């Protein structure tokens, strides 16, 4: 074996030792418990913004597609309280004040379509039911905002005609 080859093997051995010795598993901290969107829904929410959309006009590309109703009627009086028992939805109450009744139920029980990542909230009492769609979970930077959408379809054709978007702020 020539000196050059000896030197090469020696260098390779040193490099291998350094490189393998430098590889150690990092001690990452546990991620912690993941956020559960449904828990973020619990609390008392008050309306801060109301938008009405003519879905038919938007579909046709017409002008006049949306209207900001926030200050047209006293919508900001309206509060919605969602109560929970652990991870389970229980009761709700609505307090319209002078606001138009966006949910025609004073109290009852609320349920969700998906217990972990809900999209549709069903509010019901003994005689009536209202379904609203969540526009986004009140998590992270948006933790204080709850967005709810209400869609209205033509009773005969099922065609979407109007939608209302409500933004609530946590109290």
């Amino acid at each position, binding site marked *: 074996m020539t000196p050059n080859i000896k030197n090469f093997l020696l260098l390779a051995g040193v490099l291998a030792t350094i490189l393998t010795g430098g590889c150690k598993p990092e001690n990452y901290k546990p991620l912690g418990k993941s956020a559960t969107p449904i828990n973020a829904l619990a609390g008392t929410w008050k309306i801060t913004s109301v938008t*009405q959309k003519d879905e038919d006009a938007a*579909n046709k590309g017409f002008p006049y597609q949306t*209207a900001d109703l926030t200050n*047209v009627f006293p919508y900001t009086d309206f509060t919605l309280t969602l109560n929970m028992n652990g991870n389970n939805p229980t009761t709700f109450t609505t307090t319209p004040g002078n606001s138009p009744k966006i949910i025609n139920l004073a109290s009852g029980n609320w349920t969700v379509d998906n217990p972990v990542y809900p999209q549709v909230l069903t509010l019901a009492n003994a005689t009536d039911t209202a379904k609203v769609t969540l526009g986004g979970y009140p998590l992270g930077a948006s933790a204080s905002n709850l967005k709810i959408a209400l869609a209205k379809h033509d*009773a005969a054709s099922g065609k979407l005609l*109007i939608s209302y978007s409500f933004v609530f702020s946590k109290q």
Partner: protein
Amino acid sequence: MQKQKIFSALVILMLSFSLGVRAQIPSFSPSSFTAQDQVTLTIDVTGTPMAGASEAYIWIWANPGGVGPTPNGLVNGQWNPSDPAAKMTSAGGNKWSFTFTGTTLFGLAPADLHDFGFLVKSKDGTKQTPDFKPFKFDPLVFTPTKLRIFPAKVDTNDVVMLNFDRNLGATVDEQRMTPVSATVTAFDETGTQVGNPLTVTITQNMGTTIWKGFFIPNVSFRPAAGHVLQKFHYKFNGTVLDAGGNPAQVSTDEAEIFFVSMK
């Protein structure tokens, strides 16, 4: 005699040409339709390679006029073979018909659909007619009017925005008036007026000639037990200066709106 023969030949030639051309103009039922309406097209394929065929398939595509996306009809399938959904219905003789709704057939929003073209073919594509195109959908164009509600269709529990555009006024009074209020009158399904007319406060849209006011029908009008709100009338009220320079009360025409049942 020679002239008569030539004349007869010319007449026959013109009639043949006329019939041939007519055979390639489709008819539509209804005659006018938007991209959201169902329509039945009927085409006579006499004089084309499809004449005498025992079955026919449509090959249809959107916007050959050059505006908008140009997808094929969702029923087309492959050129060989056509999808069974593209099979046309015999309308007798060499006539074939096909029923469709533009938005469904092309999977496009009405705003993206301007016209369409089609041809008639055999299932395996070995025979076909020339292209028939373009045939326009009735435009879904917004037409400004002096009186307008937003949204355009409302139920009894919706927030209704009443609008008056003075620039579109039809009379001198409407064009000159300074609007101050709107009046709404509601009716039940028997045509009976419900309660008293409602006076709606209005405001002018900044920098426009449009005034607007809001109301919620079932909050302002309560029909008698066993009855329901069916429609409402509305008009805008204002003042103009008369010949003596004094303010005079005037109103616009009334518009009638029927509620749409929604769920």
